[in-house]
């Protein structure tokens, strides 16, 4: 973050030095552009994101299990307000969190994922998303994304202006006497224009990956059951369908990178998310307990480096035990077919359709524009009141 801010200041300063002979002027322009974009992101960002992904808000009655799981994770994380819950009608498997502060947050999940996951797995995924909210990653990533955007835009305009003013005959050389100082500034400005967007992007990706690890660790801590998230990630990793409504700007908000391709290399510098196999491996090697220290240990074992991933300030004292799986002790969980039915019922209801269950077992879906007062079952012929 600080690195990106510094880059923005540097590029602003040298562009200002080059164009108006005043570094401070350029600095101010860069900051002004950034501030405006931040305000937009701050006040409209969550709505824009939810609208972009065509998410629909659901209530408790629409899907009691999902609502309950979100509430459970809200309680476990100590979040003060219940986040809104959204459904994205898409067979791809993904989920994201949004909201600029923990009291105005929302979690969204695709219908595909909702029907694929068992309760424990759903808990792991929702725990990950709630952790993003609780750790204020949404705000952090929004500010970083805007910072990145500002740097890219400034660099882009600067290249255009330099190119055209260069064509017009070297306006700069005559006004201030030229000399070697001018050339050095020009060179630095050009280098910055080329390098700043790339470096900003790399920093942005690194921040994003780090926050993903932290959200995984927090999810394990909230659920006390890292296996839930691990097996959910396994299912997510096995599917290859891409989310239609995702775009590059919203990518870091999702639980897995919506643009990932098969066989992405392990230490990809230009990825918003750590490789799924690595995340699963870390979660599964948390043998000792569910605390941040256990996650950190598992991370270090994998990376063989001295540094862990969880900030020392977040570490708590005392061991934290794991719990048993829900599905291991009770076999009453709805299976995948039932879950698929639940989810499609939910989506129909959200689009204004009414569902009538006939005594013969058939389900009639009555569209919102249906005007007649009664309807007969096409399967057995019984007449129902619409």
């Amino acid at each position: 973050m600080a690195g990106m801010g510094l880059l923005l200041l540097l590029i602003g300063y040298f562009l200002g030095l080059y164009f108006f002979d005043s570094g401070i002027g350029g600095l101010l322009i860069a900051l002004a552009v950034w501030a405006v974009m931040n305000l937009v992101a701050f006040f409209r960002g969550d709505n824009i994101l939810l609208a972009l992904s065509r998410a629909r808000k659901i209530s408790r009655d629409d899907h009691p299990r999902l609502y309950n799981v979100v509430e459970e994770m809200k309680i476990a994380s100590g979040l003060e307000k219940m986040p809104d819950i959204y459904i994205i009608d898409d067979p791809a498997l993904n989920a994201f969190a949004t909201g600029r502060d923990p009291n105005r947050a929302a979690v969204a999940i695709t219908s595909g994922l909702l029907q694929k996951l068992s309760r424990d797995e759903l808990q792991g995924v929702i725990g990950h998303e709630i952790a993003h909210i609780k750790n204020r990653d949404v705000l952090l990533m929004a500010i970083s994304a805007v910072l990145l955007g500002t740097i890219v835009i400034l660099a882009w305009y600067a290249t255009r202006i330099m190119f055209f003013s260069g064509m017009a005959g070297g306006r700069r050389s005559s006004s201030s006497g030229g000399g070697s100082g001018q050339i050095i500034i020009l060179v630095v400005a050009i280098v910055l224009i080329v390098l700043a967007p790339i470096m900003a992007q790399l920093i942005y990706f690194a921040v994003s990956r780090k926050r993903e690890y932290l959200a995984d660790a927090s999810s394990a801590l909230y659920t006390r059951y890292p296996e839930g998230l691990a097996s959910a990630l396994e299912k997510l990793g096995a599917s290859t369908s891409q989310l239609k409504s995702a775009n590059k700007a919203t990518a870091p908000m999702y639980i897995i990178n919506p643009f990932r391709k098969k066989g992405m290399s392990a230490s990809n510098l230009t990825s918003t998310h750590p490789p799924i196999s690595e995340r699963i491996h870390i979660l599964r090697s948390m043998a000792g307990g569910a605390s941040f220290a256990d996650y950190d240990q598992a991370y270090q074992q994998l990376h063989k480096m001295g540094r862990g991933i969880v900030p020392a300030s977040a570490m708590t004292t005392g061991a934290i035990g794991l719990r048993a799986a829900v599905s291991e002790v009770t076999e009453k969980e709805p299976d995948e077919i039932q879950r698929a039915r639940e989810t499609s019922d939910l989506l129909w209801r959200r689009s204004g359709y009414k569902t009538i269950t006939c005594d013969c077992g058939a389900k009639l879906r009555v569209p919102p524009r249906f005007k007649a007062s009664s309807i007969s079952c096409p399967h057995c012929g019984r007449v129902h009141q619409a």
Partner: protein
Amino acid sequence: MIAVYIIVGIVVVLLIVFAVIYNRLVRLRNQVKNAWAQIDVQLKRRYDLIPNLVETVKGYMKHERETLEAVTKARNLAQQLSSSGAGARAKVEGELSSALARLLAVVERYPDLKANQNFLALQEELTSTENKISFSRQFYNDSVLRYNNQTQMFPSNVVAGVTGFKASEFFEVPQAEERKAPTVSFT
């Protein structure tokens, strides 16, 4: 003159440190209170759900009178003791949890009941309430740990001692109960 300035400076710094620590203690204590209220909400929700559950399953379970009575009895006892301290309460709530777990375990023998929509909805609510109890308990104990650490560690223990912050009680469910009731995971 300089000595006076130095002494005033030290006093001001000490006052600021005192205020910061005091505020942190207040914040942590409020968090413990909120977390306790959260547990309370979920336990009350469970008291409300149990009569419904008993009413729904009674018609199906002719031979489980004892199990049902044990649940009702444990619920009434827990409700009576609902204003006592964390330690006493944890014990009766743990008994209620294991009575409930026994009831939900015998449900497996009644396929008709498992097809009842009303029961399935209740079961989801009950499962989730059990989870919420254990998650709020988890958060409460974490908050208590943080708060108690502050009241016992130097230098905040001095501030805590002067201004009367006392360590809070953990909400521990007895270990034996936990082993008897595998469905309810109080970890």
